[in-house]
């Protein structure tokens, strides 16, 4: 059997590792030594499962989208992560990490955020646990995502603008790492995606794997089989996709499709299609695939969807791409926006623009009519209303 999981040295094939300065080594090493033990403790699992159920609202439904199915001539299920508390899959990870941080004895939480979804999910669990929360957010994003900034503040988080570099997600991540370097003892860094140094990609993937764990059970009930033919999910850093793929990785007959943001087109110079445009490199502590100049400077990506606007992908995705276990494709702004509108019209569900990228790929597939397709609806579109309004002149 192929191994798609991390090895004992923190690598997925050629990707992963912990490319961090020595200042972060003790923290990362301590986390590496303890994360699995803590996650396997019965008391941890009991509390985690209880919070996922009573606070997040899990299991999230697996919804048979009949009108979309009819349109595409096959059977389409939507995994409704949009119905989670705070409106996206991000909270699965922050609930897990806050419980871990408590057990590591940390008194202060830091996080990075782009669109603000992970920042909100972090501020939420910090409020729940009464732990100090500092969120780094690019100055440009703070202006673009005012409602999420207000949500974080309302829940007691301090939002610090990242003013370095391009003032967006990657710079917010740099600032969070700098904070951790300067506060190594009392602080835990809740990374929001399957990126960063080992063990973060593995840890976040495990917390998000509840998505595919539930999907298998739900499919069994609804179709009599635990496995679908296709699984689709959008990829920025890749956390909802990794959670959606996780328990299907070893079922090689299940086709996994990861949808990246092509922005204004892959060749337009304004894109976030990392696997197409990127090369192997090191950013934010791991070796992966990265959009960069020939000189190794990281390029600022573009997508209409702030959650897919990241110049890299998680190392496990880089591995799945390289060994061709998953297919990586891309969808433009225009295609995603149309798919978002279509989902609203046909199913009465307004998806996050991120998730609309995954829906848009249905349009490009050829179906015989007998397939079962699961699309991860990673978040709801409330946060994107202003963008939808502007785009469709609503």
């Amino acid at each position, binding site marked *: 059997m192929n191994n798609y999981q991390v090895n004992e040295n923190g690598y997925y094939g050629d990707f992963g*590792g912990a*490319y961090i300065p*020595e200042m972060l080594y003790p923290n990362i090493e301590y986390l590496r030594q303890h994360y699995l033990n803590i996650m396997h403790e019965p008391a941890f699992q009991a509390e985690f499962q209880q919070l996922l159920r009573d606070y997040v609202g899990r299991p999230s439904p697996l919804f048979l989208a009949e009108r979309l199915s009819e349109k595409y001539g096959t059977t389409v299920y939507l995994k409704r992560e949009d119905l989670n508390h705070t409106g996206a899959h991000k909270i699965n990870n922050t609930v897990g990490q806050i419980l871990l941080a408590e057990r590591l004895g940390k008194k202060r939480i830091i996080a990075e955020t782009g669109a603000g979804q992970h920042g909100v999910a972090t501020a939420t669990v910090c409020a729940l646990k009464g732990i100090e929360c500092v969120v780094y957010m690019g100055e440009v994003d703070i202006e673009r995502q005012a409602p999420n900034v207000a949500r974080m503040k309302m829940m007691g988080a301090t939002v610090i603008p990242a003013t370095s570099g391009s003032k967006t997600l990657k710079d917010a991540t740099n600032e969070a790492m700098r904070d951790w370097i300067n506060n*190594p*003892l009392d602080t835990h860094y809740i990374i929001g995606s399957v990126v960063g140094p080992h063990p973060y990609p593995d840890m976040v993937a495990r917390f998000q794997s509840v998505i595919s764990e539930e999907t298998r059970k739900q499919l069994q009930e609804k179709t009599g089989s635990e496995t679908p033919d296709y699984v689709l999910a959008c990829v920025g850093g890749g956390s909802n996709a990794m959670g959606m793929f996780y328990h299907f990785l070893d079922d090689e007959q299940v086709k996994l499709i990861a949808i990246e943001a092509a922005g204004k087109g892959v060749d337009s110079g304004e894109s976030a299609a990392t696997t197409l445009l990127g*090369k192997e490199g090191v*950013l934010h502590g791991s070796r992966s695939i990265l959009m960069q100049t020939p*000189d190794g*400077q*990281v390029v600022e990506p573009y997508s209409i969807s702030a959650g897919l606007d990241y110049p890299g992908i998680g190392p496990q995705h880089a591995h799945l791409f390289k060994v061709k276990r998953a297919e990586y494709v891309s969808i433009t702004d225009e295609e995603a926006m149309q798919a978002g509108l279509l989902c609203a019209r046909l199913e009465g569900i307004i998806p996050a623009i991120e998730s609309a990228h995954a829906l848009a790929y249905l349009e490009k597939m050829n179906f015989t009519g007998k397939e079962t397709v699961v699309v991860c609806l990673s978040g709801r579109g409330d946060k994107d209303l202003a963008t939808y309004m502007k785009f469709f002149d609503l």
Partner: protein
Amino acid sequence: MPVNRLNELFARKNGPLLSIYFTAGYPEIDSTLKIAEALEKAGADFLEIGFPYSDPLADGPVIQQSSQKALENGMTVELLFEQLKDLRKRLTIPVLLMGYFNPVLQYGVEKFCKSCADAGVEGVIVPDLPMYEYEGMYKDCFSNNGVTNIFLITPQTSDERIRKIDQLSKGFIYLLSSSSTTGKNLALNDEAEHYFSRIREMNLNNPTMIGFGISDRESFRKAAEYTRGAIVGSAFVRILGEDNYLEKIDGFIRNLKSND
């Protein structure tokens, strides 16, 4: 192989050593060698020339801004080696290159080491290339080209890990004054002094230098009580942002080294 200038310096020189960091291509694209020459003339004992990166996560605002400006000026690893072709015609003191791993990886690690050797660069400091990756993948590239890799340690680094770093090091070990990004002032508290003493008592094979947070004569002198000397970065880079910076270098170095 010629005698490594760095080892020779540590063996030969008594008294505290002063190393200066500055970013290549800052403030001007062609200022790199002019600054290096001025530093040698003013009495710096060795130099760390930074090659800029878009995401310098171990650096504070001063060095971040110098990197950003250097990139805007057009500095690349390729161009830096081009500029360093005449290094050994113009400078005698040891020179190290310092920067993040991704630009090195894209240039090619083997080629990078070879270019260092060709230019007469003694070693490199790559803060985000950890010991495990260095030892497993790149150690031979460095040693085959006679280029030394300098490791960092912090107050949180375990004794066991320090011993291992000591074994892998040839040159010196870079002691961070505290766990911090660059450009903060050295806190001369009991904790820091306890850490410096602990390292001194470990009797390592390699000499040590203190960096991060050394900004003035007092902190330089304090650092030299415990180690062979210190590295000044942000405080010097700040001078380079001023008018007539070349003329100010001499005074800056003499002030740091003076005994008054």
